[in-house]
Each structure stands twice: as structure tokens, then as C-alpha cells.
């Protein structure tokens, strides 16, 4: 199939950047979206032009690296799907596709479609962990955890930290990401020791990074490739109030 692409090109973090139009021909409907971009880049390299820079790593939907806003939707038109798992059968011959990077002050563009997501790393470092003594692995099931709690923690732990929630949010808020990282420990016994400090520190870091404020529109939940529930944000709100009220 033949496609018209409008892609955000930006030389470096200082460059103003802008949309550039490309035509790409001979795209197989069986190829993934990223493979389609690979085809485009092969053509650009052959012509001696700078290929389009974009992030990708595992290409099997679990690493959270790919980060394209396609026709206004982070990760494209399919629900619960990362860009690398989006296939070109989602499009028709002759389609026009707009490809942009995640847009947020806290995710500055480094080049073309690649953004710096180290703000997420700093939020994680502020408290997104449990402190345990290393050594021998503990016996299985020595800590009884109920099935609902285990399921809930697992649902939150699905978050791959791709940042689609920020990209989709009308306010570039990171609430869904932070709530998943808080929520994955909040119901587990291992998470209780640092529970209060965790939610307070991670929210403080989230605010410091300059993300926007949640207005409960749930665009994040709709865009999340791992279907993280907006209920984790509700839980984090409550956890934050309780922890604030009982911490000096």
C-alpha cells in the first residue's frame, strides 16, 4: 500500500522542529507500524537523507520504549496495543497518517520522535520500590497474599512506563503512571513499611517534574496499552490524603 506520512522532524532539543511530508510505497499490510517506518528510513538513507529517529526496543509490546502519537492517539488506533504491535492492516491504501512525539514539558523532545522520559525514572527513584534485605530467596508462600490483592498488584504492575497516559492526558498529567507504581505495592504486605513515604515522595516528585493536574477525564486509561485502570488514581488520591494526615 501507498501512504502519505506527516512526521515531526526536529534536529535536536534546541531545534524548533516541524511537520515534514513523506510518501512511502510498497508497505505490506502484514508489517508492523515500526517496520513501515523502517521501510521509510531505508529509502531516506538511500537518498542520503537523515532517517527519522524513533524509540523502539523489544518490538513485542512489553518494554515501553515505542512512543508515537499517531493521528492524535498515543500508540495509534488499536486499544491495549503498543505501536510496535500495531500492524499496517489497521490502515488502507492511500491513507494519510500524522506521527508526532509525546507532548509534555516533562518529556522534552531529544530528536524527531524521541523524547526524554527520565522524569519517570526520577519519580520511581523517589519511592517506587520496596526495601528488602538481599540474600537467599525466601520460601514460596511464606507471606500469604489473598488472590484479590495479588491480582490488583499484578494489574498495576502491568504498567510499562511508556508515558502514553501523559501523552493522551489533556493536561499532560502523570497520575495514571504514578498511581500504578504506587498501587502495585499498596495492597501487598511488602509494600506496607514504606507505604506513606512512597505515595508522598512520588507525588512530590511528580509535581516537581512539571506534569499537569488530573481533571478526571480518563483519556489516560483509554490510551494505556496495558489497560491500567483509572481506579488506581482514585486509590492513590485516598492514600495520599490518609498519608498526609498521619505524617508530620
Amino acid at each position, binding site marked *: 500500500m501507498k501512504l502519505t506520512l506527516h512526521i515531526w522532524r526536529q534536529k535536536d532539543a534546541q531545534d524548533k522542529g516541524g511537520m515534514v511530508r513523506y510518501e512511502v510505497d510498497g508497505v505490506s499490510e502484514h508489517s508492523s507500524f515500526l517496520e513501515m517506518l523502517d521501510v521509510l528510513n531505508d529509502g531516506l538513507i538511500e537518498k542520503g537523507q537523515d532517517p527519522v529517529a524513533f524509540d523502539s526496543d523489544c518490538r513485542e509490546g512489553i518494554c515501553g520504549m515505542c512512543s508515537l502519537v499517531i493521528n492524535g492517539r498515543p500508540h495509534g488506533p488499536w486499544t491495549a496495543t503498543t505501536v510496535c504491535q500495531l500492524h499496517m492492516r489497521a490502515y488502507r491504501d492511500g491513507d494519510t497518517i500524522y506521527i508526532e512525539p509525546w507532548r509534555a514539558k516533562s518529556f522534552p523532545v531529544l530528536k524527531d520522535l524521541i523524547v526524554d522520559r527520565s522524569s519517570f525514572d526520577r519519580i520511581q527513584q523517589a519511592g517506587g520500590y520496596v526495601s528488602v534485605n538481599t540474600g537467599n530467596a525466601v520460601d514460596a508462600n511464606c507471606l500469604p497474599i489473598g488472590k484479590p490483592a495479588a491480582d490488583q498488584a499484578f494489574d498495576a504492575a502491568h504498567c510499562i512506563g511508556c508515558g502514553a497516559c501523559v501523552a493522551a492526558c489533556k493536561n499532560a498529567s502523570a497520575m495514571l503512571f504514578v498511581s500504578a507504581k504506587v498501587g502495585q505495592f499498596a495492597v501487598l504486605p511488602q509494600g506496607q513499611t514504606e507505604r506513606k513515604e512512597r505515595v508522598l515522595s512520588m507525588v512530590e516528585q511528580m509535581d516537581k517534574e*512539571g*506534569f499537569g493536574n488530573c481533571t478526571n477525564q480518563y483519556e489516560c486509561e483509554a490510551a494505556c496499552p496495558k489497560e491500567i485502570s483509572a481506579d488506581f488514581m482514585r486509590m492513590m488520591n485516598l492514600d495520599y490524603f490518609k498519608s498526609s494526615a498521619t505524617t508530620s
Partner: protein
Amino acid sequence: MSGLTRCLGSSIGRKGLMGITGILLSLFLIAHLIGNLLVFAGQDAVNHYAHALKANAALLWFMRGGLFLVFATHVYLALSLTAENRRARPVKYVQEHTQVASLASRTMVLTGLLVLAYLIFHLLHLTKGVIGHEAWSSKLPDGSQDVYTMVVLGFKSPILSGVYLVSMALLYLHLSHGLKSFWQSLGWNHPVYRPLFEKIGTGLAAILVIGFASIPLTILLGVIQLPGGGN
């Protein structure tokens, strides 16, 4: 830093305060509507209520002061949070797409500011009498203000009634998101109760706005008439 200071400085804390001030303003609206609906009970009922309100000046001004404080906090938080939200995305998308965000949720600041403009108009009209002074000056035989006649005369103007009806539509948009949203902001929106809470939010918004709008509508349609049935 105390927990409260930290909380009120955070994004979550300020959103929570938005919710709490929103609840307080909605409670005021409920009380206001109950008072207003006395128009349907006739001239004596609404005048008695209005005079009783004004009789206790200290309580009235205490309530007005509290209401102003709550309102000012709500508006200040809305504007400061919105300014932060705009700064958080300095470069807009070329292709903007909305999946689930409702029109009401996307226009909260606009509808909020228009409701604020309406509120100023409303105070100049029915509280201060700067707009529609003739109707506002209606007096009872004992020389006190005839609130019933003021309201009926005032809303006989299709333009004035029109301003109120349009404003109520805007208020509905604002409340239909706000009264669903605060449950989530305060962490009360548990999935078990969410469908109920959302129905309460939308239902209360509709009841309030239909209730308020019923007064200019029934006056325009001639259902409520001046004392003695005059037009």
C-alpha cells in the same frame, strides 16, 4: 513541613480542595433552590422567607463571607491549576484527538468563568437592583421589599429570562462534570459505588438546573402571575 501544608501545596491536595469547595457550593445551590421554589407557594411564603433571611444580619453576612471565601478559593484553584496544565504541554499536537473526555469536562474553565460572569449579573440584578431597578423597588404595603413581585416582574422580560436560562444550561454542563469528578478527586469513587455516585452527580445537576430554570420559564409562560393575577 506539616502534612496539611504539604497536602495543600500538592496537585492532589489542590484537586481535593477543588472538590470540597465544589461540594460546599453545590450545598449552597441546594439551599438556594429550596428557597427559590417558595415562589410556587405564593407571595406571602417567598416574602416571609426573604425577610426572615434578612432579619438576622450577622448570620447573613457570616454566610455571605463564608460563601465568598469558598467561591474565591474554587475560582483561584481552577485558574492556577489550569495555568499549570497549560504550561505542562507547551507544544500542542498538530492532530488533536479525544477518545473519552466529555464536552463538559473539556470546557470546565470556560463554563466556570461564564457562570462567574452570570453570578455577577445575578447579584447586580436581584440582590443589588442595579439591573431592573424598577422591579427591584417593588414594595409591600408595609414598606418592605416585595421579593415576589420583583421576581415575577423581572422575569417577564424575555431577555432577562433568556440570560438566566442560558446560564442554567452552562451551569448544568459545569455541574454534570464537577459532581461526578469530586468523588474521584477525593478518593471516594470506589468501583462498587461509582455507577451510583455518577447517577447522583448527573441527577443532582439536572434537578438543580431544572429547578432554577422552572421559575423564569413558568413566569414567561404566565403560570406564575403578579399578585392579584395581573400581567
